[in-house]
């Protein structure tokens, strides 16, 4: 088996995550789609690190995890505070900036 199969898998996972962001309305699930995209990128980084024999890919994947963890904290806090004021976690409900 070629190592490229892992890259294909990462591309498919990335597309599924992007489609989730486009289609779902629940803000939490949309956020999980973003996380899935980040994870797919990590898989590609790790695979390329192995293909090229350089450890830097794994280091960058570690940094991506770190940024994702910080992003999750802020994003979930935003979702909770929006839910507190609007009583809804739907991305359609937040339309105060519409007009």
């Amino acid at each position, binding site marked *: 088996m070629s190592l490229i199969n892992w890259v294909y*898998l990462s591309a498919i996972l*990335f597309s599924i995550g992007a489609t989730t962001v*486009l289609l779902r309305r629940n803000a939490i699930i949309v956020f999980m*789609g973003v996380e*899935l995209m980040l994870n797919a990128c990590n898989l590609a980084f790790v695979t390329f690190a192995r293909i090229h*024999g350089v450890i830097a890919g794994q280091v960058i*994947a570690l940094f991506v995890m770190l940024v994702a963890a910080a992003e*999750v904290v802020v994003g979930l806090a935003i979702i909770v505070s929006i839910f507190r004021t609007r009583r809804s*976690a739907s991305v359609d409900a937040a339309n105060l900036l519409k007009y």
Partner: protein
Amino acid sequence: MTPALAAGALLAATTDTGGAEAAFFWIVAPIMVIAALGLLFARKAVHAALSMALVMVLLGMVYLSQQAPFLGAVQVFVYTGAVMMLFLFVVMLIGVDSADSLTETIKGQRVAGVLLGLGLAVLLVAVIGSVTFPPAKGLTDVNAEPGNLTAMAGEIFGNFVWAFEVTSALLITAALAAMMLAHRERLTPRPSQRDLSLRRISQGPIKAPLPAPGVFARHNAVDTPALLPDGSPSELSVSRVLSVRGQMRADRGADVMALSRTLADPLGAEALDEEPAGVDPVTTQGVPAGGPEGDQP
């Protein structure tokens, strides 16, 4: 590591993967894709979060097999342990049953989204397929000589030291932002014990403490209402949760009937007419409209 083993590992690393990893791939990859599709199709947010957790655990296993042992462990710790549990926590906080609305607010959004997603997948796969990659070098020698952790530490504190420094600023900012966003300013001062007591005297329907549950010498359970002097059960003595659930226990049939009538009509207006003879209507539990909850803030 014996020389034969090292040579074999080197050979496996240079000529792509062995059969074991191929089997691993073909087992893990379909599960991961199906679980990721669960994110797309699950109706409830909890199911989506659980399938996402499955994807992340499997990704950790993949990292372990991809010669990234540290990253595999961190993936399981950080993503499955912290991030996904935070997601589940927020799902519980917001409400498990907050259903996704299925109406389209933008016309044709679903079709366009599916087309874009499929287009992205086709584009990525086509681009990957058209590229010729060099033969895989593998990280076996790097993981053996300085070791995986040592090599990563050398990179983090060498080439990536500036990114590492900036990361600390990012983490501090994120922590401050989360505190600011989750903080709720208290608009009114917190009521003190004196305020509560005054409110109870001035507004509460019942000034005295509520009667304790349990019938003397027969039961001592919280689901047994206390009996009033005329033998009728006192609804006030049982927790409101139990009476709402219909779990209040009453011994005699008349008690049950009287109780159900009182529960069905809290004002006791109709129950008074249908009381069996011998029961003093004055003591029948006509609970005030406010109920016992007005007493306990």
